[in-house]
């Protein structure tokens, strides 16, 4: 990832001067501080720090002022914040800069400072964490063999926990099995997805959602989205769709997918690939779908994608609201709180702080060409069709004696249909006369 700040901090004392104004203190810093300072104040300070506050004052902490000041001074001497004096006019309250306090009078109200009791000074402790990233709206794209029940759960999770309205556009293309293995059907799905996303973009902009949408895609949805991005290069630059950050789960794109080109063209910002080590579906993709691979089982090669490993997770486990982790969270809540939400909001410089990043140990090698995407379209599908035809042929002889009653049924149905259409026509004329 670009602009990464590596967080290398000693695990033991001394911490003095080891801090950095631009990053959060690591988790191991706080237990160390608790050994020497009052717990209640450290807990509050940690809470505020984790919420990415950029300014701390004595009054923000519980307990005595002297203790609070000592804690903040320690925080400063360890290098995580800087002590600053903030000056203001005793009369009008206007903040004064370093030059203004050397003047006799306030530049705002022109009152002489000494006559009003002198310049007011407040001590604050500040740092310079980068602003969090804004999430404007989100698109969820489901996978094959499912209607994407996770999309509803995910959308609900998003809308109830973000603290403000973040619209989630749930894109559905229906329950698909055979269509996935047929090249022309895949292209149709991809074309329809592009049309829908372009319409959503225009609609969102018109409603004042000016940011790029972030994307969450699962399984076959990842394939559609990845190939949609590749095809954007065929368009004029001004006409290309652009997206924010992308979360992939159960991904079936090739592990050597060219994310670098896509990111450099600003089609997406950053990509998180959340893969399950027990995903049994993803490895089949390379055999059944042309230009696919097991990135949802092993991660992407290269340094363009954040590969997050979910040990022993299956194909759709990350979205599960039935299964849960040890601390009572569902798998979906755990994925969302621990990985996805931070990924969507952290500044680019801090993305490498996400936990459980594991890249593949060696580059992916694709299968020999006769095996790439051939099993279903060239073998399984013809086999299934042959069996159906064989069954029809086999049962044809036994159906022959029943042809007269069947024809009779057909005549009755046809007469009824004609009669219905005639009535509808007469009724239509009667209403419009």
């Amino acid at each position, binding site marked *: 990832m670009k602009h990464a700040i590596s967080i290398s901090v000693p695990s033991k004392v001394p911490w003095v001067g080891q801090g950095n104004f631009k990053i959060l203190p690591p988790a191991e810093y706080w237990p160390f501080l608790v050994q020497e300072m009052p717990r209640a104040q450290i807990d509050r300070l940690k809470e505020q720090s984790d919420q990415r506050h950029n300014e701390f004052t004595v009054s923000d902490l519980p307990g005595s002022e002297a203790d609070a000041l000592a804690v903040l001074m320690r925080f400063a001497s360890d290098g995580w914040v800087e002590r600053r004096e903030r000056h203001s006019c005793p009369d009008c309250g206007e903040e004064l800069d370093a030059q203004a306090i050397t003047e006799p009078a306030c530049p705002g109200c022109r009152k002489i400072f000494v006559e009003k009791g002198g310049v007011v000074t407040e001590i604050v402790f500040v740092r310079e964490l980068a602003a969090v990233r804004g999430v404007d709206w989100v698109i969820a794209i489901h996978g094959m063999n499912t209607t994407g029940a996770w999309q509803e759960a995910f959308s609900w999770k998003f809308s109830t926990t973000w603290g403000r309205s973040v619209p989630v556009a749930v894109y559905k293309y229906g329950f698909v099995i055979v269509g996935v293995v047929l090249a022309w059907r895949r292209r149709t799905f991809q074309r329809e997805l592009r049309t829908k996303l372009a319409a959503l973009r225009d609609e969102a902009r018109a409603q004042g*959602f000016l940011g790029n949408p972030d994307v969450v895609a699962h399984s076959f949805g990842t394939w559609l989205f990845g190939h949609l991005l590749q095809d954007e290069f065929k368009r004029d630059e001004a006409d290309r769709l652009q997206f924010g950050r992308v979360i992939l789960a159960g991904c079936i794109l090739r592990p050597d997918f060219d994310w670098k080109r896509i990111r450099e063209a600003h089609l997406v910002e950053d990509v998180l690939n959340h893969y399950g080590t027990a995903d049994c579906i993803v490895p089949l993709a390379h055999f059944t779908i042309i230009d696919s691979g097991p990135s949802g089982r092993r991660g992407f090669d290269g340094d363009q994608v954040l590969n997050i490993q979910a040990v022993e997770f299956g194909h759709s486990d990350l979205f599960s609201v039935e299964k849960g982790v040890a601390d009572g969270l569902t798998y979906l809540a755990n994925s969302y709180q621990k990985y996805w939400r931070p990924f969507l909001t952290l500044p680019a410089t801090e993305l490498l702080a996400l936990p459980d990043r594991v890249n593949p140990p060696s580059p992916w090698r694709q299968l020999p060409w006769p095996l790439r995407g051939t099993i279903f379209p060239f073998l399984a599908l013809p086999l299934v069709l042959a069996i159906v035809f064989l069954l029809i042929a086999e049962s044809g002889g036994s159906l022959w004696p029943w042809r007269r009653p069947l024809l009779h049924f057909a005549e009755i149905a046809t007469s009824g249909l004609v009669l219905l259409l005639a009535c509808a026509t007469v009724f239509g004329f009667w209403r419009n006369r």
Partner: protein
Amino acid sequence: MSDSTRMNVSRPTPTEIEDLKRLAAGIIRAQGNRFVKALLRSKDIQVGANKDEFQSNLTAAIESGELRLADVRTWLASVEGWGNQHVYLYNISSTLRRELTAPKIRQRVSKAKLDSLWNGETALAFPDEPQLTSISFNDSVLRLVWQEASPDWAPAPEKNFQKEEGLDLYEYRAFRKVEWRAITRFEARVKDGIAGLFIADPIQGPEHQAAIQEAKRVLRLLMDVDVLERGQMDIAVISRNLDQQNVPNNRMTSPQVKAQKSRLTSGGASVEFAANSTDKAYWEEPAIQNVRNSVRPEQLRSFQGADGVFIFQKNSLGLTRPLRVQLYGKERRVRLRAQMEVVEVWAILTKWSTQQ
């Protein structure tokens, strides 16, 4: 400055030296170190490490003729009375634009018997009362300048003393007079379609309103002030739009303008977003940004802007440093919070005219 150049410098007259020293003692130093340093450097004069060296180098440069009155006049025109002031902004309508031409203005100046002020020189004027000292019309810009000697008093504790009179003890506290001039300006940039009335007097006290009334009295002699006032910029809308356009999203992560404070009003209530530090935007605190983002541009129509403090970032609008300005929607007033140069002031004000 090289020796050969020094030799070519003609000696200043004693009067010029005296004028310059008077300016140096008050007006020059009052412009702020940043601008004075720029003046000295432009003339290759050594700046000095502290205030004493600074003053002594300035005096030496005046006496040697390295710094001349003409240099100071040009420099003062670009820095004195720009920034640290209140501004009322106007759009120049097409009707008014037709009236603001050099021949028509010149004719009206004559008719008002103000010829003596045409292209008046202002550097050495120290009137005790606010007084119109110059009217000019150059490059489609109408300029009017009022000046008033308005000394500041700096505490001089070394001169304090106590005196016993009878049974009572009296303390006498000393203040040193610091020369300062209050400048009121009206500038109409006809080509850009913007005009501004710049008042240095604090908003508190009667002087501010008096300066406005005086400016309008003179302007009535030159143009239809009612037409001008009908074009007064709606600062509330500018504040609201400027804030909205600079809330970061994932396509614009570093806005050119930081909103330190923005207050949105709706009917009889308001909501205010504000950073405690004058160099920060309120949206730099994540929780506050989240709340602000909940107000979508479409919903913004329900709100009227009110007060706002904006920091124009370095490198935006060609600025070489961050500059703070404050907008007062209700009073349709702008406050420039730092001393600035004329180009900085107009870069910012011109930008605003696009935010209405």
